[in-house]
Structure formats: structure tokens, C-alpha cells
């Protein structure tokens, strides 16, 4: 059964130095506040896993929390580059960043395999690309019926997955709707999981398009209203496109990024989202 805790306690209890950590949410419901809390608690040597690193991992990478990134598309959506990510890859600042890179289809299937308790997944993918040559978690498998050769990708089983959702009830059952991304798979693939939510309600009334994660499939729930900002939580907030634009200038410069970290992450007690 999921325990309802503060964000600071949830991160402290679940995320350890050296962990493989997935913060998922496909442009919608990105657990941004949880990412800042991980920075604030000074976690180090993390392997960060996420289809679209987005601003949340640009911040973690820039803050020096990560030794490795597992991903499939690392841009600032609708804006351009992720400058902290590029600075780490191109100039090893603030430290070198190992990459393990896939396509979206590959990453999605790696989570599916992880959630399914299988060591690998099969897909039609990567054939003829240079990705297989640089990514050891891409191999091939032959169909035992037709002999056809297909791509195989290794399962992803993060030590901990964090997602943001709209609501939970008091027992810790979690409900999310709108664009669902790979959140369900990422939670089910993980050894431990934390869900930040907009609010806790007495009862999860049915919502079209919603999925429910039962309390017994989640370890911790933390109430963090606005915890996805500047991404959004359908029914609660709009995507703050201006903030994504603003990030371009903040992140482009190491010093300005450092100021942002100081003023907006470390100066923050963690009680605010």
C-alpha cells in the first residue's frame, strides 16, 4: 500500500546515490518538482532514464547529479536545444555524461518489458541505423516460427520511478488522464515508485481516459500541487510555453544556470513546488 508522505521524505526514502532513476511523463505531467528535490538533496552518480529528458533532466544534469543518461530525444520541445545536456556531452561540464540512446519505440518497449517481468522486448526497429553500433542494449533476435530477424531491446527496470498524476485517494490509489505517455509502464517496471499528485481526494470518481494505479503498485504518494510546472496537468493547469522559452536563455549560460539553481532550487525549502 502506498504511503502518503511529503515530497522531501519521499525522495529521501526512495532515491539513493548511484540509483537508476526514471522520471517519466511525455511532455504532460512531468515530475518537475521531484527533479528539483533530487537536486536539493544532493543525489550523485545517478543514471537518469527518460524518453525525453526535457527541462527536468537538463536541470539534474547541469546540477551534476547524473553520470549517465538513458534517453531517446533530448531537446527543449518547441524551442530548441537542451543546453545543460549539450554542455555535458560536448564539454563534459560539470562532468562527463555517459549516453545510452534509443528511439522512442525502443525506449517504450524497454519499459513494457520491464513492467512485464521479461528480460527483453521485440520490435521492428533500428534496422540500418547507426544506433545499434553505439548502444549495447540493442541486439537482434530471430523469430522461432518464421526465422525473421527482429530488433531486441533490454528491459528497463529502474531502481526508482517518479511520475506526476492528477489525483490520489487517501488509500494511495492514483488516477491520471490526458496524454498517458509511458508512466504506467515506468512505475510497474521500477523496484520502487513515488507519485506526486495535484491533490488527494476522498474518492476517485471515474474520468474518461483515466488510468488508475492501485495503491499496492505504488510505494509513496506526495501531494505537490503544480508539481509538473512548466509542463502541465490536464484539468489542473496549462503548459507554460513561455517558461520553456525562458529556459533557453537561463540554461545557455553556466553562470546564469548556477544563479537559477541557487535562487530557485537551493534557496527553496522544498515545501513549495
Amino acid at each position: 500500500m502506498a504511503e502518503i508522505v511529503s515530497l522531501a521524505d519521499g525522495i529521501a526514502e526512495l532515491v539513493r546515490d548511484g540509483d537508476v532513476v526514471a522520471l517519466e511523463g511525455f511532455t504532460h505531467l512531468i515530475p518537475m518538482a521531484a527533479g528539483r528535490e533530487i537536486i536539493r538533496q544532493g543525489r550523485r552518480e545517478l543514471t537518469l532514464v527518460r524518453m525525453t529528458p526535457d527541462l527536468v533532466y537538463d536541470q539534474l544534469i547541469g546540477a551534476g547529479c547524473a553520470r549517465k543518461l538513458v534517453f531517446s530525444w533530448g531537446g527543449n520541445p518547441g524551442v530548441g536545444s537542451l543546453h545543460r545536456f549539450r554542455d555535458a556531452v560536448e564539454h563534459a561540464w560539470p562532468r562527463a555524461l555517459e549516453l545510452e540512446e534509443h528511439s522512442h519505440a525502443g525506449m517504450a518497449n524497454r519499459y513494457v518489458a520491464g513492467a512485464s517481468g521479461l528480460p527483453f522486448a521485440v520490435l521492428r526497429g533500428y534496422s540500418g541505423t547507426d544506433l545499434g553500433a553505439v548502444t549495447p542494449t540493442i541486439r537482434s533476435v530471430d523469430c522461432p516460427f518464421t526465422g525473421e530477424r527482429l530488433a531486441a531491446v533490454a528491459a528497463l527496470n529502474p531502481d526508482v520511478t517518479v511520475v506526476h498524476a492528477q489525483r490520489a485517494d487517501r488509500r494511495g490509489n492514483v488516477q491520471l488522464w490526458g496524454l498517458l505517455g509511458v508512466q504506467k509502464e515506468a512505475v510497474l517496471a521500477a523496484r520502487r515508485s513515488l507519485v506526486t499528485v495535484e491533490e488527494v481526494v476522498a474518492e476517485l470518481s471515474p474520468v474518461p481516459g483515466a488510468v488508475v494505479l492501485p495503491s499496492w503498485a505504488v510505494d509513496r504518494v506526495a501531494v505537490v500541487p503544480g508539481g509538473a510546472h512548466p509542463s502541465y496537468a490536464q484539468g489542473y493547469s496549462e503548459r507554460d510555453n513561455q517558461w520553456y522559452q525562458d529556459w533557453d536563455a537561463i540554461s545557455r549560460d553556466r553562470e546564469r544556470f548556477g544563479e537559477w539553481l541557487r535562487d530557485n532550487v537551493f534557496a527553496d525549502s522544498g515545501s513549495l513546488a
Partner: protein
Amino acid sequence: MSEYSADEMMTVAAARALRDGIRCFVGIGLPSTAANLARLTHAPELVLIYESGTLGSKPDRLPASIGDGILGETADAVISVPEVFNYWLQPGRIDVGFLGAAQLDRFANINTTVVGDYHQPKVRLPGAGGAPEIAASCREVFVVVRQNSRSFVERVDFVTSVGHGSGAGDRERLGLRGAGPTTVITDLGVLRPDAETRELTLTQVHPGISVQQVRAATGWELRVSPELSETPAPTVAELTMLRDLKGRS
């Protein structure tokens, strides 16, 4: 109104390439603008599919990202990301994959990963996203990309998504089921693979663009089709709708 930018010409030409009623897997940025313009002009039954898991999105403004809420709110169905790739893209249900590129080569292979060496890149680009499997599994692929000698190269630094490999027969050998890139729309003209060699060939120039200009913006010895034509200029209706769409976003 009769004046228009090169990007506007490119977007209009890209929109025109989409026939009404087809299913289009839409990349964000230029492809999304063109696909939405098509849907609001000549192709009202165009089915737009986004990798964020929306089937049949009908936005009335340009989505700011692949996961803009309006894509889900106006869709016929919203599904998970694994499902969009496994159940809808992979089996070949999508007619056209509409992609961008950072680098494109003579055989329409696409690079969105790195400029330079993979391990010591000059420029680290965003990476693959959905493109490798979109390029593999859609029945055909349209690429929309600004053309210059840095983006149009003899051989891409990294094959993120396969176009026609190293030429005729390569896609079949690789087991890729779709036809691959059939149309490349740029700010200068339109290129198509040669029927025999699969080498990209200039088949169309936009109004006011010379073949010489296109050659200068191409990093290989560009072949020009004997049936080279000129793209009709954007109509007033097309330009009005495009600007209106951009204004609403």
C-alpha cells in the same frame, strides 16, 4: 499578400503533398505546421497521429509541442506511447510519416543525432525520437527541411533514420517495409528519389529559385530531373490560413 517568405513557400508545398483522407504520423515543428495547414485547407479528412499517443487530432491552433494538450483534447482516441508505436505505427497502418532532419544525404538518410563523431561530437543534436521507426514503417515518408550545404551532405555523420541506405535495394535488404522518403520539401524546391538509383533528384523549384541556387545549397553533385517544374506560388487562401494559424498559436 503576394509576398511570402521562403519558409512559407516550403510549408505550403509540404502541406500540398498531403492528400486528403490519408493517415499521417506528424513530427513536431515544420511537419506539424504543414500537416495542420493541409487539414485546414485542401485535406479536411486528413488523420493526424502524434507520437504522444493521439489518433485523429484536430487542433485549431498549432500545437506548441508534441504533447500539447490540444492534441489529446481534439483526438478521436488517446492511447499510451507504447501502443502508438506497437499497434498503430509498426504494423504499417500509417500512410505518410512526416519528418524533419538536421542533416540529410544523397540517399535521403536522416541524421538528428550528432554533427561530427558520435563520441566527440561537434554538435550534440536531440537524437532519434520516433523517427527511425516512422521512417521504417510508414508506407512512405515526406521530409521537410531547410536546404543548405551544411544540412544537405554527401553522407550523414550518423544514420538516425534510414532513407534509401546506400541506394536501390537497400531498404528491402534491411527488411524495411515502407517505401521510405518519396518527397523532400525544402525552402528551395522539391526533391524525389530517382526511380532506379534512389538518389535524391531535384524535381521542382520554388518560384524565383534557380537550379544554380539549389546546387549551391547541396553538398553533393545534385542531379536535376529532365521534367523539372516550378512550384505554383502560395495562393491567397493558403497564405491567409497559414498566417492565421501561426497567429493563433
